[in-house]
């Protein structure tokens, strides 16, 4: 079954056609990669899927419901969560607070419960913290819980972003270049994390430049060049696709 279906998606910025008539589907529980040269329109695709940009044309259907043009916060509450290419943590908050904030929509207690500190409020706050800690453990960064998020190394910040994306409870997680700037060992670790995400039932869309990662973990791959989808298939098909080879001429695939 398709968790997400993208049909004829286009996004134009003035004269720039960042996306043009892109269609694909993502199966529940899959790791789906999106690849393409720099400026191909991959991040723009994510921005459209998560409601940060309103598509010029086309439709996005998530869990059988049309979500095209919905605002970002509603899409997030519906179950699509993401990380950012240029990490966007709440830098001055502690690591665990970052993950607690991400559980915001799940907390029921409002103003009154907070002021009166009713037992429901206290229990909820405790649960949210415990869950946040579990997410940190999943990523192996629980020891950093009380550190200030902005003070940590790049690779760790990327992990916090993933913990945060998980914490929203979304079944679909979009990762925008999670291994950018990482050394081979960290990259290896990130691949394990992505696989583990899938193993606990998450569906992943992954933008990735490192072909070893892409070919190693993707169930399916979509290739975008100049805003247009030029190929789609499993790793073996993509590797031998003449259009893809041309788009990447002189790059990793060669």
């Amino acid at each position, binding site marked *: 079954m398709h968790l997400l279906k993208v049909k004829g998606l286009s996004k134009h910025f003035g004269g720039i056609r960042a996306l043009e008539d892109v269609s694909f589907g993502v199966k529940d529980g899959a790791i789906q990669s999106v690849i393409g040269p720099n400026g191909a329109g991959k*991040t723009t695709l994510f*921005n459209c899927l998560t409601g*940060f940009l309103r598509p010029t044309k086309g439709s996005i259907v998530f869990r059988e419901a049309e979500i095209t043009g919905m605002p970002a916060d509603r899409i997030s509450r519906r179950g699509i969560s993401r990380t*950012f290419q240029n990490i966007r943590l709440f830098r001055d908050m502690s690591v665990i607070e970052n993950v607690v904030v991400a559980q915001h929509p799940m907390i029921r207690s409002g103003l009154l419960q907070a002021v009166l500190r009713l037992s429901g409020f206290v229990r909820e706050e405790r649960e949210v913290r415990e869950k946040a800690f579990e997410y940190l453990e999943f990523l192996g960064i629980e020891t950093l819980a009380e550190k200030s998020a902005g003070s940590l190394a790049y690779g760790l910040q990327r992990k916090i972003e993933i913990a945060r994306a998980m914490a929203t409870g979304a079944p679909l997680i979009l990762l925008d270049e999670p291994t950018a700037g990482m050394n081979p060992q960290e990259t290896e670790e990130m691949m394990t994390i992505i696989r583990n995400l899938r193993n606990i039932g998450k569906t992943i869309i992954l933008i990735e430049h490192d072909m070893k990662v892409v070919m190693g973990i993707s169930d399916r791959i979509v290739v975008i060049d100049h805003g247009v989808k030029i190929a789609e298939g499993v790793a073996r098909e993509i590797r031998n696709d003449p259009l893809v080879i041309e788009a990447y001429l002189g790059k990793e695939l060669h």
Partner: protein
Amino acid sequence: MLLQQIINGLTLGSVYALIALGYTMVYGILELINFAHGEIYMIGAYLGIILLAFFTSVGLTAVSLPLTLLLVVVLAALICSAYGFTVEKLAYKPLRNASRLSPLISAIGVSIFLQNYVMLTQGATDKVFPSLFGSGGFRFLSTRVSYLQAAIIVVSGVMMVSLQAFVMKTKTGKAMRAVAQDKTMASLLGINVDKVISITFVVGSGLASVAGVMVAAYYGLVNYFIGYIAGIKAFTAAVLGGIGSIPGAMFGGILLGLVESLGASYISSEYKDAYAFVVLIGILLVRPGGLFGKAPEEKI
């Protein structure tokens, strides 16, 4: 009547525009609402009176009035520039890397300080600018324009055009634009960012002082709190045009002067000070980035 109000509005507007330029330039580079800028304008107005009195006492005014006036304006501009330079070095420069609000509070502190400094040294009562120009004027179309009004409009116009030329054509001007766009990039390109910021304050303060001297002559009276309301209006003008944009500040200033002058005579003079804000709020609701500015958009 209408034409008369338009001339009055243009005069007032030119002054707002000159002050607004200082706000917009500083904002463009530091993203700081330089609250003390209105005070620099007020100091300019006082210097106009002080220097004129000094030159009169040494007998220069009797020799040549135009020469004296020129000297007054130039000296006032120099001293105000020195004030602007000093304020930046003491109160803003140490806060280059602090959160946005800290320099704003520092600017408010400078503003309070300078107001009280002038009140203590010059007294709390109005200061009078001697009426040197009589009531001379000329007819323009069907209305009378005083020489002073004409001078204010012309001088402001010339200064605005020169500033635009300075920013667009000279090397320093280009450096200013580069710093406004991206400080890190500019310093990588070998531009001395601190120096550019200093120059911005010096130029902005100079323009404000000219406005101050002209207003002192126009209204004949100054007080230590004139900088505050003029400052607010000028900043509004800068935002109206799109803050950071030099033509925007000029246009915003003149628009504001016209709105105020026409509103005061055709609607109600009691709400004179409110028109500026009503127009501002109206325009921002339609164009959230001001008339000439672009609404800031963050790339994700």
